[in-house]
């Protein structure tokens, strides 16, 4: 057991993948000599060489586009988009080919690749470096969308994503890269993609979130308990596609009340889908309308105004109390 940050835990997962599977290859801008702008690929070029850890030209579309071809020749690419905000250059290849080849060829040509993208606010970065656009990827059939929230699940989910036979968008909450440490087991660990975790049990209200928003949600749960004697049940989704509706339904049916929290804008955001499914499957168990705590439907503000834009514990507490007091 070691106390690791998410950055170190991701590095561990990549190291394990390179060690365990000789067909894996890491590719991205500045991932080699520079070890990644967030140092997620620290020491990997040194230990595995330039054929396994490839410094790529500034061409996001080619990173994922060439990765398709690598897949066809039996190589398993782990791509890095330096920031999710630049992932849109790769959108065309992801939407038009990566998500489709399995269906198009009825399984003869497939794209078992991972596209890692740091997302979200919280590091006072310049424009285009702070958005949460997971809904865009979750909307595309044929992709899995995995979003870890802490060091231990980041390591295990990245391992699972690399092993997955389908393309995975691995959305990394960069605000969590170095925000805190967790015990991460020495032995390789994997998790099933598509299983949410109940990270805290409670009976008064279900709070559903994922990724970076799990931090304010945990903080809010403490405040709800300490200040208002409310026991919130917290669900960390860990993946948006597939979405673990069974865990969601079990909790909502128990508490009858629900708040969904994410940084992404509200309109057609993940919360909209989650709530739609709750309405479809568990409407009769609801005691109150479901509340959303999300980014506003605005262009992401520059970093001096990003704090009030983001979900925080105060917003979550307000929403949870509104739902409970309905």
């Amino acid at each position, binding site marked *: 057991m070691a106390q690791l940050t998410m950055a170190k835990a991701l590095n561990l997962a990549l190291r394990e993948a390179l060690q365990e599977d000789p067909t894996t290859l890491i590719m991205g801008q500045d991932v080699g000599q520079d070890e990644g702008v967030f140092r997620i690929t620290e020491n990997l070029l040194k230990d595995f060489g330039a054929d396994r850890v490839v410094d790529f030209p500034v061409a996001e579309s080619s990173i994922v586009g060439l990765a398709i071809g690598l897949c066809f020749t039996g190589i398993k690419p782990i791509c890095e988009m330096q920031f999710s905000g630049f992932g849109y250059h790769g959108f065309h*290849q992801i939407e038009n080919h990566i998500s489709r080849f399995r269906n198009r060829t009825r399984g003869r040509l497939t794209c078992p690749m991972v596209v890692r993208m740091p997302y979200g606010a919280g590091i006072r970065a310049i424009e285009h470096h702070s958005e949460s656009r997971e809904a865009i990827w979750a909307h595309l059939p044929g992709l899995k969308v995995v979003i870890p929230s802490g060091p231990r699940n980041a390591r295990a989910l990245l391992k699972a994503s690399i092993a997955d036979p389908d393309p995975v968008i691995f959305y990394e909450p960069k605000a969590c890269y170095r925000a805190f440490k967790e015990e991460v087991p020495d032995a390789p660990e994997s998790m099933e993609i598509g299983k949410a975790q109940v990270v805290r049990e409670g009976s008064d209200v279900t709070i559903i979130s994922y990724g970076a928003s799990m931090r304010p949600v945990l903080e809010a749960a403490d405040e709800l308990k300490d200040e208002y004697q409310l026991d919130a049940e917290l669900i960390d989704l860990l993946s948006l596609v597939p979405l673990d509706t069974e865990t969601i339904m079990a909790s909502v049916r128990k508490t009858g009340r629900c708040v969904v929290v994410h940084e992404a804008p509200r309109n057609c955001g993940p919360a909209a889908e989650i709530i739609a499914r709750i309405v479809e499957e568990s409407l009769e168990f609801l005691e109150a309308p479901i509340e959303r705590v999300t980014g506003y439907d605005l262009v992401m503000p520059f970093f001096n105004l990003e704090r009030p834009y983001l979900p925080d514990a105060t917003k979550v507490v307000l929403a949870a109390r509104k739902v409970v007091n309905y």
Partner: protein
Amino acid sequence: MPRKKIELENIVENISILDQDGNVDKALEPKISNDDLRRLFRAMTLARRYDERMLKLQRQGRIGTYGPALGQEAASLGPVYAINKDDWFVPSFREPAATLWRGWPIDKLILWWGGNEFGATPPDGAHDVPICVPVASQVQYAAGIAWGCKLKKNGGVAVAFVGDGGTSEGDFHEGMNCAAIFGAPLILIIQNNQWAISLPRKKQTASQTLAQKAISYGLNGLQVDGNDILAMIYATREAVDRARKGGGPTIIEAVTYRMGVHTTADDPKKYRTEDEVDCWKPKCPLARFWLYVKAKGVVTEKDREKMEEEIQNDITAAIERAEQYAPNPLEPFEHCFAEMPLHLKRQLKEFKAYLAATNGETSSADGNPENLAGYSKHLH
């Protein structure tokens, strides 16, 4: 300081070997066995007749929109003749001659244009990618395939196709730039058929040639008479040989002409003159190759007649088989992911209930009756 001219390492050349009157440049004439010449002539004839029949099928409403490759048979057949079965073939969508040469049954091609994914499934073991619709996007994965062959050290190369219009796309630039950087054994054939739907070649780029684009990637560019199968074979063999020896990618501009419509949804009279089309008629790749094989004595008039008859019969049989094909509406659910996730299982259940409720008959979105009777057999 005086201005200095920068001497570039790379050059652009033009080659043609067999002219429209059947004259051959003996110095460059590629060695091809008589058997192979016969096979190539048959393949080119098949591609031509296939195209003609597809246009008829489209007019009869038996397939969807069709994009013919009339007049471009040599430009796509020559390059795939120059590679091995284990090498990779990455088409755009105007390469039926190459696709048939690679062993795809005619039925599959018909089924693709008839709106069936089955037409996009490469035959077992084939190192072929299906038709690519988004223009030039295939250059990127073609570069990846070639790079993968290099990383795997399997000696393979990739031959990929793009059109003159595709050279304006970012994917063309990014793909070739990366292929060059990684020394990927990629041979990219630009089928310069002079028209990207309605946009003429001169409005596509201010470059003097498309071949010279290679220079900006640190590669040699070769402009080839694309209606001359011998030149296409010669040029591709040279590029393949270089690629296998670690010399990296090559761009070959095949100068050809789109004799027909862009697709059957298009009327070229709106943007180009009949005179222009007429100028290209004597340059027909099939007529020219016929002069060559006839002069060599490898295909006689009588052989040709027999060949034509067999080809028409093969196409007729393929059409019959294709029209027997009943798509399974459940397949898209089965092939979205390796394992069907819960949400798709639920949607599949909903879809099956719908199919059962249709009782075999429903209407498609455009109001045409669509027979779903064949689908119900897939319900279980």
